[in-house]
């Protein structure tokens, strides 16, 4: 789960990483008050989770509190790349000599934390990795041992700083790692880390992505878990399904992530367009299947339901009962293609056929049928 910038800044500040003085506000009046308290030149930043807010007008430099008020008023309630701005951050503007980059990530390919350091911050790190890979230093940290002084020294030295500032950078690397560990982050990033004319280092942006699997350890964030999900995604989440909104008209409902993806791909390859991706996981009972099927029956863009189940721990008869119940309870009849294979398949087929739902045995055949019913696009 991605944190808002102000939340990430709070975690940085709590750990002693220098950040510019700031306030978070949700009305223009509060913004004016905060701006007057801080005083001088200010930066107004929309608190949204979408990437690229700067280019979309979500970051503005104000010469004085009145100007900050005007920017805050413009941003609050507006949309940035489709995301509603509910809060803005009012921050003291910092004079910048150079922009640097520091982050700690979970590197999937080696299964360990990696420190990324670059003397050329302020740009998109993926872009930098493509254009000047030699400007990024990667340092492997053994997860069993954790960060050591020499890791921090190596990362700081690569930033190309004088001796005095070097020590400060070293401490920031250590502190950033502490935040990374303490909050089970997938990513903790400072981009840019500003070097001021006075030789201070200040984190003027803050990005943190928490591991969804570790959220239970941080009740202060887990309550807002559904923040970046659509209505259907949030509903599915409550029932412990994986759900992703797509833009077609064929609803995909399967058991297991790999099979759901393969089913989605097959529909697409055969010329159809999936409306959504719904993975009910393993071992779902009839009541859960009913709720999953109901969700897609109510989904306005879904015209055809393609249910593809390969029963292992999931029983086909439970699935069949869930489908029948969902149709009865919602009273919605949509075109439906069901493929059942595996545990209790015969019983499942019997239940569905008694209710007028025909069951197919092969996945390709079923995918073709679903595409045909959806109308090739």
């Amino acid at each position, binding site marked *: 789960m991605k944190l808002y910038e102000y939340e990430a800044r709070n975690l940085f500040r709590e750990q002693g990483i220098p950040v510019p003085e700031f306030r978070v506000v949700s009305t223009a009046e509060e913004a004016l008050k905060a701006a007057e308290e801080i005083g001088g030149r200010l930066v107004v930043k929309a608190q949204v989770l979408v990437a690229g807010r700067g280019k979309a007008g979500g970051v503005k430099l104000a010469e004085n509190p009145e100007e900050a008020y005007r920017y805050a008023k413009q941003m609050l309630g507006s949309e940035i790349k489709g995301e509603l701005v509910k809060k803005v951050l009012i921050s003291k503007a910092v004079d910048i000599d150079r922009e640097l980059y520091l982050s700690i990530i979970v590197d*999937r390919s080696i*299964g360990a934390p990696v420190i990324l350091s670059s003397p050329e911050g302020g740009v998109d790190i993926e872009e930098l990795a493509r254009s000047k890979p030699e400007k990024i230093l990667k340092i492997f940290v053994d997860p069993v041992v954790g960060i050591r002084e020499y890791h921090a020294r190596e990362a700081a030295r690569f930033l190309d700083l004088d001796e005095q500032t070097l020590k400060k950078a070293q401490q920031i690397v250590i502190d950033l790692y502490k935040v990374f560990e303490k909050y089970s982050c997938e990513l903790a990033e400072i981009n840019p880390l500003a070097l001021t004319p006075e030789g201070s280092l200040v984190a003027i942006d803050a990005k943190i992505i928490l591991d969804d*699997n570790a959220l239970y350890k941080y009740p202060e964030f887990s309550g807002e878990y559904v923040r970046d999900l659509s209505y259907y995604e949030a509903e599915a989440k409550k029932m412990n399904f994986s759900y992703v909104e797509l833009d077609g008209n064929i609803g995909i409902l*399967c058991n297991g*992530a790999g099979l759901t*993806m*393969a089913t989605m*791909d097959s529909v697409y390859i055969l010329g159809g367009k999936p409306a959504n991706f719904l993975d009910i996981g393993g071992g779902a009972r009839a009541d859960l299947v009913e709720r999953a099927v109901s969700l897609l029956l109510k989904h306005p863009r879904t015209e055809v339901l393609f249910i593809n189940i390969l029963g292992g721990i999931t029983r086909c008869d439970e699935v069949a009962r869930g489908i029948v119940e969902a149709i009865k309870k919602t009273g919605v009849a949509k075109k439906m293609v069901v493929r059942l294979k595996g545990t209790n398949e015969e019983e499942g087929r019997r239940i569905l056929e008694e209710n007028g739902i025909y069951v197919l045995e092969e*996945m390709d055949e079923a995918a073709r049928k679903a595409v045909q019913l959806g109308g090739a696009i």
Partner: protein
Amino acid sequence: MTVLINSETRVVVQGITGREGSFHTKTMLNYGTKIVAGVTPGKGGSIVEGVPVYDSVKEALRRHPEIDTSIVFVPARYASEAVYEAIEAGLNLVVIITEGIPVHESMKFTRYAKLNNTVIVGPNCPGVISPGESKVGIMPGQVFSKGRVGIVSRSGTLTYEIAYAMTKAGIGQSTSIGIGGDPVLGTTFIDALEMFREDDGTDAVVLIGEIGGDMEERAARYIIEERYEKPVVAYIAGRTAPPGKRMGHAGAIISMGVGDAASKIKMLREAGVDVAELPSQIPGLLKKVLKK
């Protein structure tokens, strides 16, 4: 021959008294897996499906020194504890079925396992099956059949789909390894390819990948650099997945410009791997490469 497990494998089930643990103990026993003990702290002395339960792995091992493998069904919040216990007890193989373990924990125990020469399969995986010999996992045994093709996969049900298609086409499997759907895993595609390379009971390998990370790309590089001798065919799930969305598995996400299906398919093809468009095409591709 097979890899990782065979008819001699002796298993302890960690979390045996839970709903999942007891259910799958039964299905594994029915398959013929030699489960000799179970562990649930505080439940020592009880019996599940005829299997004696102990309070710790150490105690189970004292009574049954032949145990070499563990399968973990312990819920996510306590799973790491169980894994460390199994590694410290010196087991050769620990299969972690549990889904939802924080990645900071799996980074630590996978590293700790390497330092102790314990092989970890998972987390968040369906387990390992050597058809006709042993099943240390939750897969439906009936879709698999004994044979000479190895399977390595990041997915569960999709593997069953492909194994079922292979079995129907008369192509059996030596061993099928479900390495799991998490971002950090104990066994990678490369590890599995190495195991199958050494195994004289395996003639070809099916690699079932998905979006997220660069494990498939690394496997492709390994095949080229090591001049991998055995034919490999592949299927990659998620080629139509939108970027930035987690597709069911914690690890199935295209992020920071890495992990899309197109680059995986391209690199695998460059390595001489036949990549299927649909899961049902795998048996046909296998027949082609096995003829050569």
